[in-house]
């Protein structure tokens, strides 16, 4: 390459182009804000507000809550589980295994899985005092009555729950059943094991 060719290499003015300021067209700004707005509307309708529990096709936590099964036996059972865990589970254990020297197990207990529920329903209604044999073990019990604190539906749910959970396979109890038992025998002071055994199943 000779000197002449080198000098010929410079083209134009030799200055780099420079960016200058200019206004963004108003139309683009409007379109961008419109898109932002539409995005916001879509987000509001479909995001579930990033709730970890909300998946499509549900669009909000409220809608998902609405679709939780609430009717029939399944709902009574779910309600019973909730009541059990807040009221009964403190002593009898959330797993139904009871606590030593405090509360006997409900899982597999012959009092719970008996064919009839009249004796069982009596226990939370009026409380239970004294000696009771559960699964071959003697328990000296002092259970407080829950009848005043729990509604018929609460008790029916709890009784159904303990009769069908943890491997227990006994029949359900309805709120009407509890109402009848409450009307017939409620308002006692706490009963003893002997009295309990005298009630027909």
């Amino acid at each position, binding site marked *: 390459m000779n000197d002449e060719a080198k000098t010929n290499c410079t083209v134009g003015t030799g200055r780099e182009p420079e960016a200058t300021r200019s206004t963004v067209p108003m139309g683009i700004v409007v379109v961008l804000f419109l898109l932002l707005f539409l995005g916001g509307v879509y987000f509001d309708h479909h995001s579930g507000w*990033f709730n*970890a*529990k*909300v*998946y*499509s*096709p*549900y669009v909000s936590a409220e809608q*998902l809550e*609405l*679709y*939780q*099964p*609430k*009717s*029939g*036996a*399944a*709902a009574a*059972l*779910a309600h019973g*589980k909730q009541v059990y865990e807040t009221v009964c589970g403190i002593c009898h254990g959330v797993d139904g295994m009871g606590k030593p020297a405090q509360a006997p197990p409900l899982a597999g207990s012959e009092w719970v899985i008996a064919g009839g529920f009249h004796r069982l329903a009596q226990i939370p209604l009026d409380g239970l005092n004294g000696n009771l044999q559960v699964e071959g073990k003697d328990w000296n019990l002092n259970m407080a009555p829950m009848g005043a604190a729990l509604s018929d539906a609460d008790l029916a749910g709890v009784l159904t*729950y303990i009769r069908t*959970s*943890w491997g227990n396979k006994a029949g359900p109890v309805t709120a009407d059943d509890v109402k009848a038992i409450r009307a017939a025998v409620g308002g006692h002071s706490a009963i003893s094991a002997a009295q309990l055994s005298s009630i027909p199943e």
Partner: protein
Amino acid sequence: MKSGLCVFLAAFIALGLSWCGFVLGPAKQLGTARQAAVLNSSDTYPLQPTGDATLGLQVYRANGCAACHTEQVRQDGVTCEIVLTGAGKNPTAVTNLVSTLKLTGLTKEEADAASDKITAAGGSVETHINPVGRDIARGWGVRRSVAADFLYDYPVQLGSLRAGPDLANVGARLPDANWQLVHLYAPSAVAKNSAMPPFRFLFEVRKIGDAPSPDALQFPKDFPPPSGCEVVPTPEAKQLVAYLLSLKADVPLYEAPFTPVIAKP
């Protein structure tokens, strides 16, 4: 560069924001997820997988199963259905009322309104919640896949291509371990027109010794193994099948409710 700091800050903010969105946010939301409660039951979901199933996930991964199989069931919508469970004391009135109402394909609001009407007339009803969608219609699942389904999977084998069927619920769909093993050894023996390549290297073909192995595959009649030989799965094949059978996304959860179809005994 004239505005190096500006470019650096812009890049930092752009990457930082996407890191927050893709890594920090999900980790905060799901990183502490635990077993979820099964709806209307005292069970939790998913079950802790067995050791074989945990190892099986690595076999699944090593053999590239996720290249052709997904583990995600999609759900397009949800419909409600009203089922009359009792006619009450005035069956004629309830039956007449029910015949005037739409009972399937309802939204929850419509279902609740109809169920209130029937209850007011003395009947008793149950509202069933039925997920609908193309994958569900194919029988690949009963509800959509949710994060809880993958609680114990590491790494999660979502997959993105379906040369084969979705496997999110395969343990409930095809619970027979022998079927799974035969299918891995010779897909066409049990699934006609299957496009799956055979995974024979996961098996050992050998002469039957003094007594046939209890693990030997039970082939269908029209696909007998060479006489005097038996096909025995290697530990990897057993682990893979244990993993496949552990894929059971068939219980209702809070985030994906449905009414299970209870098989009549």
